[in-house]
């Protein structure tokens, strides 16, 4: 599987990200680090605890990460949830959160499949010491 096939499979914007990154090398480097990012796990916890202020901040961050990686579906779903929580209130519609979950799992699954098929190890693909997991 190529990174283009991975992006195509998850409906992400391969052409756009290659243009922004000036080629494919950085796409591979950073897309394969997406599973390391803990924002989604912390968002799940915030939603479980109905901590909507924290959920807003985290879904906003998730939207930024997804947008930077041109994960189109996840960006759109997170954007809807960000707008819904912006006023500080509770989530108005459970389907909004379900959409974020679906899009995240879809992206994660495709990227993990790519990592496994290409036998990429995260430690080989990061600048040691500079990445600070949240």
């Amino acid at each position, binding site marked *: 599987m190529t990174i283009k096939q991975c992006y195509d499979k998850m409906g992400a914007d391969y052409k756009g*990200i290659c243009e*922004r*990154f*000036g080629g494919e090398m*950085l796409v591979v*480097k*950073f897309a394969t*680090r*997406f599973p*390391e*990012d803990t*924002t989604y796990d912390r968002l799940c916890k915030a939603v479980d605890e109905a901590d909507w202020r924290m959920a807003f*901040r985290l879904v*906003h*961050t998730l*939207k*930024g*990460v997804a*947008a*930077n*990686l*041109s994960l189109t579906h996840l960006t759109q779903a997170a*954007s809807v949830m*960000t707008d819904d929580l912006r006023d500080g209130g509770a989530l108005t519609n459970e389907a909004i959160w379900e959409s974020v979950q679906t899009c995240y799992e879809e992206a994660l699954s495709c990227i993990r499949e790519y990592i496994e098929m290409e036998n990429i190890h995260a430690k080989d693909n990061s*600048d040691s010491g*500079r*990445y*600070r*997991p*949240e």
Partner: protein
Amino acid sequence: MSETDDRRVKVLVAEDNGLSGELLQAVLETKGIESELAFDGREAVSKFQASEPDTYDAILMDVEMPLMDGYEAARTIRASKHVQSGSIPIIAMTANDGIEDIQAARANGMDGHIAKPIDVDRLAKLLTRGLENETK
């Protein structure tokens, strides 16, 4: 940020998400722009205030950050006694590009606004050709 300056442009990047921060550093590097990361607004303020004059040519400031958000950090930098407090360009980075985001950035002392995903070419122009004409 003189074009005759031999040294590379260096920016302080305030971004609380590690992956997004490193990604931004990597794409800035492709444009020959050096950068240093701060993981929240408070750290950005500390790094700026502790810096020697002209260490940084600009600050890229995420807005939604823990401990101190980007707006408060920008106001704090503008009110500081650092020799560049009033002059260093501060560019807001947000996941939104609505007019209210641009107005909020300006109201909090920032010079420009750029939406995520970052258009690196536009950002590089902002940083290397000066903010004056690009962001107004």
